[in-house]
């Protein structure tokens, strides 16, 4: 059978709080037995999701929270990051690989998440903000124990 893991936490909208989530995330990924290489990519993708939620979603208002859920099920890890902002339309994001954008100093966060994870989905959160759901298949010595 597949081990399941569920964890929820909420942080104030400060960049330094990203490190708190990273501590929990690393523990989660280790428990799930995810390979080191994949762990590092998930770490970076979650950093990007949190940074976007804090900066763009909650506009660095420390009284607004970012809610994070880690759920493992069926050999897959789902990470949901929800802000308390006013919503976001991902179709308005420009392509950071387009020649006219390649030297822009920003606009690569979603590209990072798409590149490092197996799936990324945006939706409206129940609090009116944005929820990004990141998916990663769990591969590694302890995660492939579904027999």
């Amino acid at each position, binding site marked *: 059978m597949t081990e399941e893991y569920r964890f929820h936490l909420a942080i104030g909208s*400060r*960049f*330094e709080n*990203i*490190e708190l989530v990273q501590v929990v995330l690393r523990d989660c990924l280790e428990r799930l037995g995810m390979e080191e290489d994949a762990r*590092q990519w998930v*770490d*970076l993708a979650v*950093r*990007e999701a949190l*940074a976007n939620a804090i*900066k763009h979603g909650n506009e660095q208002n420390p009284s607004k929270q970012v809610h994070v859920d880690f759920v493992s099920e069926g050999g897959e890890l789902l990470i949901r990051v929800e802000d308390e902002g006013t919503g976001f339309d991902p179709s308005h994001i420009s392509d*950071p*690989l387009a020649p006219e954008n*390649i*030297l*822009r*100093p*920003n606009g*690569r*966060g979603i*590209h*990072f998440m798409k*590149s490092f994870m197996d799936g990324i989905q945006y939706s409206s959160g129940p609090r009116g903000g944005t929820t990004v759901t990141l998916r990663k298949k769990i591969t590694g010595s302890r995660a492939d124990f579904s027999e």
Partner: protein
Amino acid sequence: MDVSKRQVGDVNILDLKGKITIGSGDVQLRNAVQEVINSGATKVLINMAGVSTIDSSGIGELVSGYTTATNRGAKLKLFNLPSKVTDILTITQLITVFDVFDSEDEAVRSFD
């Protein structure tokens, strides 16, 4: 993140150590590059060997440093990239923008 500065001949080298992430290291990198460019340096190398993590904000600061240097008639190049940083520059296609070298010697000699 820690940044230390040194010179090899007329080449200014910034040795980075730690994370270059939003709110932690990105501003230090920006300030360090601006400081060295403002001092009149035209040959700038960034030693990436000690970089443990870099996010999109850190990558953005590298790009800003590159464009600042170029606009001021200077050259900014990178060396000793950890494999993950190389992967990130590849994913973002910035590997085609930056001059990247495997060693300090090679990077210093590239200005000749």
